[in-house]
């Protein structure tokens, strides 16, 4: 099993005491499969995605990536997991502002000591061929989103975690990006867990997990 989530709970401290965000979430994801994570705003989708990525640790429960329990890992091991096994696509792109487009595209792969491969070919498919030496701030939101998707495609991780990856794209471009991600999953046997509000996009994936008030609905 690529990803196994069992009875995960997470709450955040507020001035009114602990605020539960996730309550006993459990699910599995195999390699080569895609899973849509849906739910209303505040239902805990992004928090779950961040826990799976090893950006934070659950208060209770277990998250295993390729059999390794994230909660038991040290900070350095979790960083190594993100570097080597996980690819993150954020809704707000979160590109590295000091690096050019081409360096952003290859950054994750090089960090993981992987050959970036045919980056220019991919950039062409992403519609970024003319922008390779620009910096993120010089791009539109849609272009930045494509760079963020491209960064993960170049890194070829075993687990792709995407948070509204096509939210800033028009429908046609969004569909094209989805196609690229599904192609990668099919080619590399990676798993894709994608947060989306779009019923249409959720319908393109193999399965769906709907959250409501921190629980699987």
């Amino acid at each position, binding site marked *: 099993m690529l990803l196994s989530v069992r009875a995960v709970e997470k709450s*955040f401290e507020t001035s009114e005491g602990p605020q539960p*965000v996730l309550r006993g979430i459990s699910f599995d994801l195999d390699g080569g499969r895609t899973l849509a994570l849906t739910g209303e*705003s*505040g239902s*805990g*989708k*992004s*928090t779950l995605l*961040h826990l799976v*990525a090893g*950006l*934070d*640790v659950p208060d209770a429960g277990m998250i295993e990536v390729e059999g390794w329990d994230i909660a038991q890992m040290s*900070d*350095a091991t979790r*960083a*190594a*997991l*993100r*570097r*080597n096994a996980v690819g*993150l696509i*954020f*809704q*707000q792109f*979160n*590109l*590295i*502002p*000091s*690096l050019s487009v081409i*360096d952003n595209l*290859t*950054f*994750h792969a*090089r*960090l*993981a000591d992987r050959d970036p491969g045919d980056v220019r070919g991919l950039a062409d498919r992403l519609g970024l061929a003319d922008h390779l030496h620009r*910096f993120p*701030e010089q791009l539109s939101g849609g272009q930045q989103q494509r760079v963020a998707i491209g960064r993960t495609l170049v890194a070829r991780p075993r687990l792709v975690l995407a*948070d509204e990856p096509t939210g800033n794209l028009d429908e046609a471009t969004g569909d094209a990006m989805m196609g690229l991600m599904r192609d990668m999953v099919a080619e590399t046997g990676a798993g894709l867990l994608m947060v989306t509000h779009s019923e249409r996009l959720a319908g393109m994936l193999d399965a769906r997990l709907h959250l409501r008030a921190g629980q699987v609905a």
Partner: protein
Amino acid sequence: MFAATDTDLPDGLPDVRVAPDLAPGLLLADIAAAQDILGTQRISRLLILPGARDGLTPLPTLIPGSRIVEPQGGADVARLTDSFHLNLTAFGLLAFAVGLFIVHAAIGLAFEQRRPLFRTLRALGLPASRLTMLLAVELVAFTLVAGTLGILLGYLVAALLLPGVAATLSGLYGAGVAGQLSLSPVWWLSGFAMAGIGLAVAGGQSLWQLARLPVLAPAMPRAWARARAATLRRQAFGGAGLLGLSALLALFGTGLVVGFLCLGALLLGVALVLPPLLSLVLDFGSRAAKGAVAQWLWADARQQVPALSLALMALLLALAANIGVGTMVGSFRATFTGWLDQRLAAEVYLYASDEAQAAEMRAFLDGRVDAVLPVTLAPATLEGAPGEIFSQTDHATFRDNWPMLDAVPDAWDRLAAGKGALVNEQLARREGLWAGDTVDLSQGGTRTILGVYSDYGNPKGQAILNEDTFVEVFPEAQFLTFGLRLDPALAGPLVADLSDRFDLPPDRIEEQGAVKAAALGIFEQTFAVTAALNVLTLGVAAFALWASLTTLGTMRVPQVAPVWALGLTRARLAQADIVRALLLAAFTAILAVPTGVALAWVLLAVVNVQAFGWRLPLLPDPQSWVVLALAAMVAAGLAALLPAWRLWRMAPADLVKVFAHER
């Protein structure tokens, strides 16, 4: 009888009152009391105030043997102390400039941090003029508090440094400086005026930008906007222009003010070219880096340059000032000690009270020393200005050691034959006279200049004649001072013998070492103020760097969080932060070295010549530069430590907030 608070007084003086306004080391007494104490009826000189009526009997007629000496601008004490003050003012202004950079950076960062709030307030209907006015009031309030603290601290520093400065001016130039400070209204006014000007210069740009900020200003960080090539190009061109101007002023300009303008253009020019140069170097480093982390580190450092540039400029100016002034003082010290070794070649210096004692001493010394070298001088008008003529015995001591800057062939033989005179550097530079020219020595006649010697610390023109010629010109001159040459090992016992035999107090017989130590003591005191200002400037710059890095540390979290999310640990990111600060400090220090050397050159070759009349060789001290560069890097490392530690200890939940648009 009056003396300053800390003046050392000999025993037996009647009723000395403390006069805080007097310079230390000066005793003021009625002329009759002074004659009693000094055991003489002679009056050395009368100061004649300007504005005497026409038609009065000339003084040389009233007082036979007297001579009127007109004041001369070049050697005037007021001019020398003015130049000393100008030096201090220049360093004060440098510290002010460094402060301006810091305040500018701080205001810029503070406004940058609150930019989203300003946009929101504007979007909610707050007029730009009102927002600008509110922030201006906030800045004025801060300025008033900071200005008050600054004036009080300035007073404290001045009070601590004043005795040393007064003693130096008195010791070097005989100039009296009030020994006590008062915190006058003028101080307050000028202090607040400086703070106000500083605020206008440092905060004006930010306020102006705020007033013109469109309601829906793009979310592009200002740091990025400022890093754009156009801005850097403008800075590079402006800086290069100022450096060119500085070079032109150094080569073709004359006068003290031009010297300081040259310094100002040099420092401002280098400060302006620092960000574009740093960007170029860091860009090159980013392109040349092999690994992803190394590439990010270089690129990230480049991106931080605009936000850190003012603090780095302040660090550059402080380092350059330290290197420049350190090189100048080091060159001065090395030249001065070498010169002292040459000029004070005799092992013992002996001062007789009168000619009878001098004769007794010479008889006593016969056979006990290798040579007795009589020294005497007479005041004289040299090229129309007050100066002095020295007598010199023809001896190997002088031939081997005298520090000549320029000389005709066989100068010493010709001097011994009475065929000319030696003149000091001050007289030579002031009058533009060098070896082979003729010099007017008034009663000493017009003589060929056989050589020009360096004579540091002496504001007056000076000439040297052979002893026989001197006695012909000044038959009444008394030879009461002697340099004694002997085996250095025998100097101590001889001093003891002479002291016993003639009942000499310590100030009438001195070993070479004591004279040198006293001269060096005065020298070190001269630069104590400069050293204090140097440390202050460097400390302020380091503080600015710390403040900028700390503020940036908070603002940079959204830039660092994605790198962390992609698999770099917080510890590694914190290390990168420190390495980045070290990298920037190292490049700044590297640029500061040539700037500091250029600064030292201008100080030694332009300002010093104009202010004091002598030129010193530039003696580089690379070891001290390395030490200073390391100190700058240590300061930068320490400045980066707190923000790096915060990043290292930052909770993952706080970093995740960057990505969280919902929970």
